[in-house]
């Protein structure tokens, strides 16, 4: 994850209501215990069940790979992200998936962020809080792709400061270190990075999978295997 884990305000975090979709029983039942500062209002084994129940939640924590019974194809992966986003939820992908093309696809489908299951629980809690505030959370690998897009002239809306902060974050530099180097506070550096992730997510959503493969140097068909349905004019 690219954001520094910051202890959220407890009173603020309590207001974040989360619905979880995971095929792992331990994850579904364990999240309320592991994240006491987050209100887990419901948990489901698949995205269809979530959509049918339509719980009141500000963030949906969505696992990408859902096992199902194997008998009937189930809604999972980027199509599940798209369906849940279309239902009006903010989606935070919580997964072990590391393939960049898949993660790019999820952001292009409207996900607000990606957190790996290997991350500390504090990072997950922090990401949930941030996503509830409409911030974009991306992984280190995706930060590298954002830098690649910027270097190839595809993120033209970035300000010079945003480019400097992105360059530091892509190299694993902390916000504190970036702040000291650029003579700004770490909060200010964090603010610039928010701008970068927002523009990068918009870039992913606004371009076709074929263009993204071209711009980001991903292997052909990595993204074009699945395309979000586009509204008819």
């Amino acid at each position, binding site marked *: 994850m690219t954001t520094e884990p910051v202890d959220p305000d407890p009173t603020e975090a309590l207001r974040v209501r989360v619905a979880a979709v995971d095929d792992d029983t331990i994850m579904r039942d364990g999240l309320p215990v592991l994240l006491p500062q987050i209100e887990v209002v419901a948990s489901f084994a698949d995205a269809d069940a979530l959509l049918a129940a339509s719980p009141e939640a500000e963030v949906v924590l969505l696992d990408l790979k859902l096992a199902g019974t194997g008998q009937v194809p189930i809604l999972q992966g980027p199509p599940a992200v798209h369906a849940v986003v279309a239902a009006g939820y903010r989606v935070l992908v919580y997964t072990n998936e590391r393939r960049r093309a898949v993660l790019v696809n999820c952001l292009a489908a409207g996900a607000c962020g990606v957190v790996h299951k*290997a991350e*500390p629980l504090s990072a997950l809690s922090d990401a949930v809080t941030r996503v509830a505030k409409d911030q974009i959370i991306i992984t*280190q*690998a995706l*930060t*590298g*792709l954002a*830098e*690649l897009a910027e*270097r*190839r*002239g595809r993120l033209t809306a970035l300000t010079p400061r945003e480019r400097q902060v992105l360059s530091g974050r*892509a*190299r*694993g*530099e*902390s916000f504190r270190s970036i702040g000291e180097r650029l003579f700004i506070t770490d909060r200010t550096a964090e603010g610039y990075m928010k701008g970068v992730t927002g523009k990068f997510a918009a870039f992913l959503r606004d371009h076709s999978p074929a263009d993204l493969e*071209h711009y980001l*140097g991903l292997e052909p068909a990595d993204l074009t295997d699945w395309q979000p349905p586009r509204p008819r004019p």
Partner: protein
Amino acid sequence: MRTTVVSNAFAYVGFSVLTRFLVGYLRRLGADADFGDLPLEISVDLVTGVVLAPVTADALQRALATLLANVRLHAGASSVVVHGDADQAQGMWGNNRTGRRPRLRHRDHPARLRTACTGGTGPGSAGSQRARALGARRRHDYHPAWTNGVPL
């Protein structure tokens, strides 16, 4: 280390394949038995087209392996980023309006590798001394040309 195998491939196949092998080596670091225990994030997209002389590539791989070994011993990091970049001042990406993928214009511009660790204590003194001996800076910057005097 698999540098011997890679170096042989460099020697026999030539420069263009050398580059591919170098980036492939870096990307395989996370799955490699030597560093599979480290929480590596490999970010080397910006040096995909960089061409290195075989002796330089070999030195770079050994230096990177040394840095990572020191990170393993001393940093206690929860995340280790290996980042590669090429100097834009020397000419970075070619014209991408041709419809083809952008490619590096020059084969003689400097490339840099950097490792950074988070969540730990940072490099120990032994690692820092070794890094200084290699011409690296505190942030583990590594410039291959500093090590053996072979310009890129």
